[in-house]
């Protein structure tokens, strides 16, 4: 066992593999940071280069792009309030709020250290407990998925900022959006108005880019002639390095978040985005110190989201390598990479190609360490961008958003939809309606509806299946608690209801 790992580390450290790791991670960081290019797209674009590489080098490259992408998504989120990845939406809420207060470099440090910690945590769990994670993930059937989405949706109160009423308004709008398109159970068309534009439903990346990124540009463009002092104020990176005691103070969050991330990452159909939202919601719900800060720059929320979205990588890879089932979009693309090199990911992979499996473990471990350094470089680069006049920067971002929306399915329809959403997002900001609950509901709504209906199909209509397993009961009571608790605890939260 140990020599397998030593051999794997030695292979990954060969010069050409190291080069692949650096290039893959840099590409991932860039793809992640740019709002239009998602991590899975970054991996797809690399796939065609892997034909001519040796299998190990190919996987080192792809693992680099995968981990880099999940990590890079948060740089632009914190600095510019523009999420590079859907999994960085909670980071936009807390991280960008911190940046606006002049603590940009502090927020970036917290994000970077938590990301790397979350990533390493999940790799270690993966190495130690692959069979355990895989069998736990399989316990999730439709009823458990439903309970998980209910728990996810119940954090709306935590995402609402000032008024719960507006938070729920935004949430229900998102749930409505999730019902558009082809019904996943009957194949019936809903709210498509006999056009093909809405037939496939609303892709949440399109909605997210429009609601958050483009509408942010509109808001900024309202004051084109204001004196320009750079996007956000920040102090030097060295001066803002967070002390160890900061993380120690949030011990519960630091332990819980990567666990949530690893498990949710292993669930096919969930992934980094849902992991980040759930972990963020848990932190908001149990915050002992300064719960009122959530939505306005809570360090704890930033930590929770960043630990979890990076930890989901280990979970996703675990279920891919042990069962051949992709836990996320990006790992689904990796299956293609296995096939290109004549392998079938599945339970037998460990015995047929142990070199590849241990090599992937080793490269994930080393890539996380490498990213610590590379991300600092990337952060410095993006901090420089901050000095660029916003009028120029925003135009570039707008182009990237349009390209990204088009690139999802090579279709102009998504670009139109994205601009429609940017107007909706602009209006929502003007009326002070939080955007995050809408995105959360759009991400979870589809899964909530389908898993509920699947569960009822399986039980022949009996709702008892929803509380039929310990997992569902625990998750649902957590959801109940987070909805009921604020009603009794803090009548202030109900302002506006």
């Amino acid at each position, binding site marked *: 066992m140990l020599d397998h790992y030593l051999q794997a580390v030695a292979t990954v450290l060969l010069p050409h593999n190291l080069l692949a790791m650096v290039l893959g991670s840099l590409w991932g960081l860039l793809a992640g940071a740019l709002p239009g290019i998602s991590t899975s797209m970054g991996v*797809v674009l690399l796939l065609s280069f892997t034909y001519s590489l040796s299998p190990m080098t190919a996987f080192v490259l792809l693992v680099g792009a995968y981990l880099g992408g999940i990590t890079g998504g948060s740089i632009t989120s914190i600095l510019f309030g523009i999420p590079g990845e859907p999994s960085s939406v909670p980071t936009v809420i807390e991280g960008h709020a911190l940046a606006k207060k002049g603590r940009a470099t502090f927020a970036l440090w917290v994000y970077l250290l938590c990301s790397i910690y979350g990533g390493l945590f999940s790799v270690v769990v993966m190495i130690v407990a692959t069979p355990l994670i895989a069998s736990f*993930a*399989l*316990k*999730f*059937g*439709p009823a458990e998925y439903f309970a998980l989405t209910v728990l996810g949706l119940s954090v709306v109160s935590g995402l609402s900022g000032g008024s719960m009423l507006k938070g729920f308004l935004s949430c229900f709008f998102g749930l409505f959006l999730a019902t558009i398109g*082809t*019904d*996943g*159970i*009957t*194949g019936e*068309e809903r709210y498509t108005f006999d056009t*093909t534009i809405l*037939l*496939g439903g609303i892709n949440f990346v399109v909605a997210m880019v429009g609601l958050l990124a483009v509408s942010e540009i509109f808001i900024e463009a309202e004051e084109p002639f204001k004196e320009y002092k750079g996007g956000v104020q920040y102090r030097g990176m060295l001066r803002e390095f967070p002390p160890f005691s900061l993380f120690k103070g949030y011990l519960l969050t630091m332990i819980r978040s990567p666990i949530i991330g690893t498990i949710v990452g292993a*669930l*096919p*159909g969930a992934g980094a985005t849902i992991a980040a939202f759930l972990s963020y919601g848990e932190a908001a719900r149990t915050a002992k110190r300064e719960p009122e800060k959530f939505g306005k720059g809570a360090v704890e929320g930033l930590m929770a989201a960043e630990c979890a979205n990076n930890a989901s990588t280990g979970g996703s890879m675990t*279920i891919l390598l042990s*069962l*051949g*089932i*992709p*836990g996320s979009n990006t790992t*689904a*693309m990796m*299956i*293609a990479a296995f*096939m290109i090199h*004549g392998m*079938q*990911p*599945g*339970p*037998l*992979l460990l015995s047929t190609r142990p070199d590849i499996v241990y090599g992937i473990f080793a490269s994930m471990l080393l890539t996380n360490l490498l990213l610590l350094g590379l991300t600092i470089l990337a952060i410095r680069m993006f901090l420089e961008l901050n000095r660029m006049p916003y009028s120029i920067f925003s135009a570039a971002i707008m182009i990237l958003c349009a390209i990204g929306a088009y690139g999802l*399915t*090579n*279709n102009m329809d998504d670009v139109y939809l994205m601009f429609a959403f940017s107007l909706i997002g602009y209006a929502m900001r003007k009326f002070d309606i939080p955007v995050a609950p809408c995105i959360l509901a759009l991400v979870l709504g589809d899964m909530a509806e*389908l898993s509920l209906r*699947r569960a009822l*199909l*399986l039980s*022949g209509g009996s709702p008892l299946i929803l509380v039929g397993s310990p997992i569902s009961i625990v998750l649902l009571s957590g959801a109940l608690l987070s909805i009921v608790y604020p009603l009794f605890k803090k009548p202030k939260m109900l302002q506006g209801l």
Partner: protein
Amino acid sequence: MRKVKTLTWVVFLVSGLAMAAANLMAAEYPERAIEILVPFGAGGGSDTAARAVAEGLKPQLKNGVVVNNMPGGGATKGMLYVSQQPADGYSVLAVTTSHLIDAVKPKTRSQLLRDFDPLCRIQWDTSAVTISGDSQFKTLTDLIEWGKKNPKGLKFAGTSPGGWSEIQTVAFFKKAGVEVTFVPFDSGAEIKAAILGGHITGAVEELAETLPLIEAGKLKSLCVIMETRHPALPNVPCSKEVGIDYTHGLMRAWAVKKGTPPERQKFLLDVITKSLQHPMYVKFIQDEHLDVRPGYLGPEETRKYWEEEVNFFSGVLKELGYVK
């Protein structure tokens, strides 16, 4: 100065003439890249198949070939797109069984049989009845007998409600005299996880996808849906053997818009047929077990096969209540 001016004119004239000549010479089809439109996302079965054929096309087409993905609307969005391009042989649609089902009750203004000419069928896949490795059912007979005693008691998963996945599940079990509950999921990954976790009984799915899990004993196959036994699973009976008269499988074909000049259709058919012999493609279909049943059918046979399948699907969809 004058000299320079004249010289400029001469240069203009000559380059203009050269360009015109080049245009005339290149007027031979294909003068630009041919687009293969895959109406599914990147990385899926149709996409990898199309890209494998495209590898073999590359050396034959000097202006190249581009594979583009346009998922959405159950593969109809991409079909609509190709039907809106000019019929000049530069857009080729990767057709699957989904389009034949859509032809019964089209979702968009485009209908496969009416708007397209088939070039050829390239693959004919095999499905299998797959359940969990530790399931109580040892043989297909066990499963069918239990299913007959408990109507709707067997829960089978699939990916497309009202589509190929539901049709093949329901139609197969109908021939066996069993009524099952069909539970649609979003992806093959979720289905496999749900079978392994014991949340559903099983699935009727393309075999190649589940083979690694079957070989590892985590899943088991009770029956392959074809005329003979499958070489990768010699111990598993085929549907004909157990007396179920059902051998339909997922097909992949390529087509162009109706009205494309016959000589261009012929050209495309020739280059595609040639690329099906390419060693890389041959290795690909061997790895994916797509060579078990002969996939290739010429244009005429493909059209005839399509018409038969559409008839069959129309009957099944009527019984299921999707079409009145």
